Structure formats: structure tokens, C-alpha cells
């Protein structure tokens, strides 16, 4: 029922925005968001990107966004709605829009699509994502340094490769500081439900975790950590507002420069379906200021960040040991290759939890 409704809202919204088709020479750019623009996390950062292109290109473009579009087959209608209403470049900004985007892209070969965090491409469908695991690795080091109990609490959304690689990178970073570090993982099976995220954070803390990390979209967990007087990491955007004395740092998804680049390419007629996967170096992934930690930890974090940017350190450098203690095949020479990271379906050694679905 809720899904149906949300779709109804989305379709209504699309219909409403479709009405004033006035300037035919304007490039219409569409965005599909999984959460509300004010989630202060994932969707918020994409919205910041959209606002940036509006500022940058002004009258040359017209943008539309549909928020709260649920993932899966339902999203197809929303994407198609944008395609039908004259949008020439459409960004679908969540993993679960992958197959629907592929389908709609096939149906509308003259329209260009870009899908975030997925892995399926076509001539008119590019993909883009951030190397979030680089930030996770740094967070792992900080977490292990700051934890007194040696237990990290991790709130996962869905067990998809992007989230799994984040957990693994965290552990690999943490193990460089404390080889016996433990991690407790709770999957909430939603990207956005502040109440549930808060409940998960409480459960993790009640079970002994004293650092909270999250891969969900609202600042609820940060706030629970603040109430309980422990440390946490922000997700997607700087959440220090919700825990000024709590946030150690945050991974900030900086989509704006990418959106500017792609819209410019489209305006210049040079748009191509590409596979973009940028990290700290290209500033698609950025770290919020390192706060609430002693100087030596801060220095360690900064050095690690610098090493990753310089390319001298790779979070998944070989050998990477699987849960069974055996090294994982090293396809990238000195580190795991892109396919292994983007399709990660195993836990590294030291994650004392059953791999979802195995």
C-alpha cells in the first residue's frame, strides 16, 4: 500500500512538473531520488548536486526531481515519466533503480541515462559511483583507535556489494590498529527509517559497541550515539550538527562536480556513456573535518587519507583474507580489482558474522 502510494505521489508529481513544457531549447535534466531531499544524507547530497547545476547553467537547463521513489519495478514508471516528458538526461540515484533504468534506457535510445552505484551499462546508459570504501578504511582506523570496548557497531541497509565493501574496508582499516577488533552488524533492510535506525543504534550500544557506524541515510544513529555519550561517524553528508561532540568524521558524497561535468558534456553534445568511479583523489568522496579525537589519531587519519590520494595505499591491497582465513584471488595485481570490489560478496577475516544469504 505504501509503495503504491509513494508511486502515486511520484507519478502525480511527475505529471504536475510535466505541464509547463515551455522552452523547447532548454535541456531538461531529471533526477530520481530514493529518499526525501531533506534526509540530510544520501538524497540530500544528490540534491546539492542538482542545485549546483541549476546555479552553474541557469537558463540553459531545466531540472526536475522526483523524491521518495521506492526501489525496484515500481520505479520504472517514474523513470519513464521523466523520459516521456522531454528530459534528455536522467540521473537515477540509487542501486535499486538499476534494472528499471536499463529497461527504460532500452526503450528510449535517444535519451541519455546515468545510474548511480550500479554496474549495468548501455550505449545511452552511463554509471557512476564513489569509492566510499576509501573513506571507510580511514574510519576503521579511527574507530579502532577510539574504541575502548574493541567492539564497533555497524548499521547496514541492504547486504549489497557497496555496503559489504564498506564493512570490509572498515575492518581492514581497524585491524591495522587492533588485530582483535570486533564488529557487530545489524541490517535494517531500509535506507531511510529514522526510528528503526535509532533502534538499531540502541541495540548495538546495549550489546557493547562504543563506536557507531552506519550505512543508512538519516542522522538518527548519530543522535542516539550523542545521547549515550559515545562516538559515531556521519554518513553521506557532514552530520556534526546532530552530534557536535560525537562525530569523529563523515564520508561526504560530493556529486556536484560530476553533475556539472556531465551536464556540460551533454550541452556540448559530447556526452558518452562512461563508467565513472572516483574517490578521495578526485574529491567525489570527501572526509568531513576530523573532530573529537586526539591529535595522534587525527594525524594517523590524515596520513592515511594522503596515502590513499597519492595512490601508495589501497584499502584492499593483497593479500585480502576471506572469513575462512584463506587469501582471496588477487585479480588487480597488488590489490583487488574493480569488479571484485563492486561485486564484493564475502566478508574479510575477523568479521564474526554470517554472510547474508550464504
Amino acid at each position: 500500500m505504501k509503495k503504491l502510494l509513494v508511486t502515486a505521489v511520484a507519478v502525480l508529481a511527475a505529471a504536475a512538473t510535466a505541464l509547463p513544457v515551455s522552452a523547447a531549447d532548454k535541456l531538461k535534466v531529471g533526477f530520481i531520488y530514493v529518499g526525501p531531499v531533506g534526509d540530510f544524507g544520501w538524497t540530500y547530497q544528490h540534491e546539492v548536486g542538482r542545485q549546483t547545476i541549476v546555479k552553474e547553467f541557469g537558463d540553459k537547463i531545466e531540472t526536475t526531481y522526483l523524491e521518495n521513489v521506492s526501489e525496484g519495478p515500481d520505479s520504472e514508471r517514474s523513470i519513464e515519466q521523466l523520459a516521456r516528458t522531454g528530459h534528455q538526461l536522467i540521473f537515477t540515484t540509487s542501486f535499486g533503480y538499476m534494472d528499471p533504468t536499463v529497461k527504460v534506457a532500452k526503450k528510449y535510445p535517444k535519451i541519455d541515462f546515468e545510474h548511480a552505484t550500479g554496474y549495468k551499462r548501455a550505449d545511452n546508459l552511463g554509471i557512476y559511483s564513489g569509492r566510499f570504501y576509501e573513506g571507510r578504511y580511514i574510519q576503521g582506523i579511527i574507530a579502532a583507535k577510539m574504541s575502548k570496548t574493541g567492539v564497533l557497531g555497524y548499521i547496514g541497509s541492504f547486504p549489497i556489494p557497496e555496503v559489504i565493501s564498506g564493512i570490509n574496508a572498515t575492518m581492514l582499516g581497524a585491524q591495522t590498529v587492533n588485530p582483535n577488533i570486533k564488529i557487530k552488524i545489524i541490517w535494517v533492510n531500509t535506507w531511510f527509517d529514522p526510528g528503526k535506525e535509532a533502534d538499531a543504534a540502541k541495540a548495538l550500544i546495549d550489546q557493547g559497541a562504543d563506536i557507531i557506524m552506519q550505512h543508512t541515510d538519516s542522522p538518527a544513529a548519530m543522535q542516539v550515539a550523542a545521547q549515550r555519550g559515545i562516538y559515531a561517524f556521519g554518513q553521506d553528508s557532514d552530520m556534526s550538527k546532530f552530534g557536535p561532540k560525537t562525530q569523529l568524521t563523515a564520508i561526504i558524497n560530493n556529486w556536484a562536480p560530476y553533475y556539472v561535468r556531465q551536464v556540460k558534456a551533454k550541452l556540448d553534445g559530447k556526452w558518452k556513456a562512461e563508467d565513472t568511479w572516483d574517490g578521495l583523489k578526485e574529491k567525489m568522496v570527501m572526509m568531513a573535518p576530523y573532530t573529537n579525537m586526539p591529535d595522534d589519531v587525527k594525524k594517523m587519519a590524515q596520513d592515511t587519507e594522503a596515502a590513499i590520494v597519492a595512490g601508495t595505499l589501497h584499502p584492499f591491497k593483497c593479500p585480502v583474507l576471506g572469513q575462512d582465513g584463506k587469501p582471496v584471488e588477487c585479480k588487480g595485481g597488488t590489490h583487488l580489482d574493480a569488479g571484485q570490489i563492486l561485486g564484493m560478496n564475502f566478508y574479510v577475516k575477523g568479521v564474526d558474522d554470517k554472510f547474508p544469504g550464504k
Partner: protein
Amino acid sequence: MGLFEAIVISVIAASTPLLLAAAGELVVERSGVLNLGAEGMMIMGAACGFAGAWLTGSTFIGALFGIAAGVAMSAIFAVLTLGLAVNQVATGLALTILGIGLSGLIGAGFVGERINPAPHLYVPGLSDLPALGRIVFNQDGFVYFSILLIAGIWWFLYRTRAGLILRAIGDNHASAHALGYPVLKVRFYAVLFGGACAGLGGAYLPLAYTPFFIPGMTAGRGWIALALVVFASWRPLRLVAGAYLFGAVSILQLHAQGAGIGIPSQLMSSLPYLATVIVLVLISRTRASAGSAAPASLGMAFVPDR
């Protein structure tokens, strides 16, 4: 604080917004009106409740704002479905869509602002008792109010004449009308009461549960509240059991995951819903012979023959 205590406290917090909203809806449905707009009223209660608390610094005034928002939303519903006899299902759904949109607009300026969470009761001595002290004597006002509310609704429905009239109207509005009872007036008040409860349940989220406002933060709790009313077969005491069962399963599955019990998380996440369905089936089996527990006039528009 022991783990057991911590779990129970989390369960109470998770159950309270559901209980508040469902309690109101129960009275509405008992009067024969189906208001599917609970989600919309809740999210409006959340937005306005937060606004009230942020502007005045008082949780109590915030709660009043939330109630007022719920009442205002339900008044729209009442005018349309009772006054103009518009289809209740369609109007309820429209109310939800309106609420989600409008609350985002109202709350936009408050996103990212913080308030102090609702104060908790503290009784010297009692609140520090081991085990039960924190659970019984150290909750916020919403929790105590939700229990009083259910007791009050039970007393009203089964021990007062007005409650009997309300149930009669819900079961057969034509007969009640023939007997001279003011069907539309009673339903109007019931709908407003339901709106007040939903608004308060919504306000609980930003005022006590997660003290900030974010658009869409009710995340479907209004729909759960609606389901709980059916689950409780329209009886207030069963509603308490249902809400707490739902809350308990939701929290326990998180703890089970944290403890590393190797059950797929997707299955765990579906447990609260699964438990609800199973109990529902069991209840309807035992009362199959007695017919449906639903108020007989539920969802039907009433147009008095003047």
C-alpha cells in the same frame, strides 16, 4: 543497565507512537468511519509538533501543536466524508498524500535543527529500583499518556452511554439514526479525536523518539497503526498487546542480529509483519462462527434522509 531492561525500554519507545495513532483510529472505526489518512496525520503531527517544540522550547507545547495538526487534518477528512459523503477510502489516501507533502513544506525550515528530547519521569527512589524501576518509573509523558488513553477509551466504549451510542452507530447507522441519535455529529467528533491521537503519535517521533525532524520520518508507521486496529479486532486492550508485540518483535530482531544469530536479516525484518499476520489468522479462526469483528457500517457513507 542490564540488557533486558535496555530491550524493554527500546520496545516501549518503538511501540508508543503506534499505540497512540492506533488508539485514535480504533475509535474512528468503531464509529463506522474508515480514515486511511493516519500516515498523513501522523507526519503532520511530527512536523508541527517539532515546530512547536522548537519555537517554544517546550515538549508539552510541541505535543499540543502535533495534536492540533492532526485535528486540522482530520477536520478536512470529516468535512469531505461526513459533510459531503465523499468516498472514505479515496479521501483517506488523499489525506496521506497531502500530509506527506505539506509536512515536508512546513518542516523544510526545521530540518537540521535540534531540540531536547522529552523529559523522563523521575521519582526519587522508585526510578532507581533494580530491573523494573527504569521501566515503570522512568518513561516520558507520552508513554504514560498512551496507557491512560487506552484505559480511557476502554472505559468510554464499554462503560458509558455515549460509548454505546458510538458503537451502535458504527454497527448500524441507519437504525441509530432512526432511534434519533446524531450519527454525523458523533462521527465528526470521533474523526477529530482520531486526528488528535494520530497527531500526537506523530509528534512522539520528533519530540521523544529521534529528536529532530526529517520529511517522511514516520516511514509507514501510520499504515502499521491501521493494521494494528484490525489486528486488535477493534478492541482497545488487544490493541495494547498488538502494539507491544509488534514493537517487541521489531526490537528483538535487531538484537538477535547484533548477537550474531545466523538467521537472514530479511527474514528477521519481516518478522513483525509475519507475527501480525499469524495472530490475525488465529483470531479470525476462532471467531469465524461469530462473523467478522469489524463494525458493520465501517467505511459506508451515511446520508440522512431529510
